[in-house]
């Protein structure tokens, strides 16, 4: 955990209700780690994954969806504004074992996978991604993922790629991999867990603190109670007990 004052470099809408926020003055954080942003007028900080990190400029990017008051207030962040952030939270993905990774993302859950994909590419891996979006207008990072490797796409309404969800792709396509890395809505992750157990998932939970002090985010796992903010947000999928 690092408490940092970051400066807004960019804050723009990139798809319907989806914003890209670029912050400068950020320490390095690993793919899958997250940050807690203080939003003026709100008490609890808002958690977001790193979407990208640019080491040369200390630029950290996040992509956030406007879902409530806090994220709506974030759209008002202006270039040059100073933001109070807790950075480098959580464990991040474990990249040490995979030889043939597969990335599976749904909705905003695709965000941390982009940064992960870049890092895996750097380490010499071939990148295969299966991405599920609600509809064509909600698609983001398509070009970026395509540049990194092969991409399979599904949309709920069929406006792009396969009509359905990522499971529909995984069950029909014969994709070769040894370990998957997933992030997305709970229902998707639960379905993934009964499909295959050799993977890591990044989970979400409401957070009181984000650094392990309040027990607000605890989940049950096969290895006892774990804090999503501290022992997570990335867990081995076969350890998570999906409710």
């Amino acid at each position, binding site marked *: 955990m690092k408490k940092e004052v970051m400066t807004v470099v960019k804050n723009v809408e990139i798809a319907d209700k989806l914003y890209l926020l670029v912050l400068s003055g950020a320490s390095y954080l690993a793919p899958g780690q997250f940050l807690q942003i203080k939003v003026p007028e709100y008490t609890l900080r808002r958690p977001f994954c790193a979407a990208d990190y640019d080491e040369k400029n200390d630029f950290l990017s996040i992509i956030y969806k406007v879902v409530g008051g806090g994220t709506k207030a974030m759209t008002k962040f202006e270039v040059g504004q100073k933001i109070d952030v807790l950075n480098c939270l959580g464990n991040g993905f474990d990249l040490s074992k995979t030889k043939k990774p597969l990335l599976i993302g749904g909705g905003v859950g695709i965000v941390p996978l982009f940064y992960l994909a870049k890092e895996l590419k750097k380490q010499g891996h071939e990148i295969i991604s299966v991405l599920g979006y609600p509809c064509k207008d909600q698609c983001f990072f398509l070009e970026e993922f395509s540049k990194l490797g092969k991409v399979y796409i599904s949309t709920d309404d069929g406006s792009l790629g396969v009509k359905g969800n990522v499971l529909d792709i995984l069950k029909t396509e014969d994709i070769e991999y040894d370990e998957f890395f997933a992030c997305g809505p709970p229902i998707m992750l639960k379905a993934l867990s009964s499909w295959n157990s050799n993977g890591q998932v990044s989970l979400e939970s409401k957070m009181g603190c984000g650094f392990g002090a309040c027990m607000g985010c*605890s989940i049950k796992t096969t290895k006892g109670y774990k804090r999503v903010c501290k022992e997570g947000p990335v867990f081995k999928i076969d350890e998570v007990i999906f409710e």
Partner: protein
Amino acid sequence: MKKDTQVKLFGKILDNPIIPASGTFGFGYGFADYYDINVLGSIALKGTTLNERYGNPLERVCDCPCGMLNAIGLQNPGIDVVLNEELPKLKKVYSKPVILNIGGHSFDEYIEVASRVGGNPQILCIELNISCPNVKEGGMQFGLDEHLASKLVGEIKKVSKKPVLVKLSPNVTDIVKMAKAVENAGADGISLINTLVGMRIDLNTAKPVISVKTAGYSGRGIFPVALRMVYQVYEAVNIPVVGMGGVSNAFEVIEMMLAGASAVMVGTENLLNPFASKEIIEELPLAMEELNIDSLSEIIGKSHRV
């Protein structure tokens, strides 16, 4: 002139009155990764029960104006793990005695936990949480009924080798009556306030946000309520009062002490800013300078004497 921030609690000198409140600082050692926690006057540990508890289902926390709701439901690893694993871990990074906060569901559970603590030199006192609004089968019940509270404190005093600090619930009509009852039953000190029972409803689903519907409200918004209760209790009892509730800066620490607090706990603020307790300790001498205060222990309850 050098500012004297020392205070005394149960015969022990604390370097300063700042104590992170139970449930907002885990078992302490986690924060040693962020700063040298030896600056803290003491530490109140997460509420501990006889056996391991997961607590309530998620959602357990909720954002609110000027504060938050929590219904953690006393997640903790149980007293034996706390004594044999958590306390030794803390000892490596914190050299002062700490406050062991006890939660429970029955007389037997509280008594058993208090007895297992024994004379452990790492423990300054036990804090009896009879005010947790978040456990179904009891907890706060003890803190709402003065007869139950007295009986419990009496029993605990029989088995405890440590001073007993009783943590009161603000969810009562007459806080003074409760304070007097536990003092008469033998409490060595009183800490207050625990959280105020509140709730929020999700506008989209019309369901309560918190899984168990109601939860405890804490944070800056409760400061005036907490201060009023500390003031009233100080006036009514002859044992030390530890004040807490919404404290977020050194001036509020001083205000709590003027109202009668011998020491001051900082809770929710640690969750919003992990450095909060340390920063408040650093601000204290500056705030004292500004207010012409030389010694903190001299201002305890001063607003009752002017």
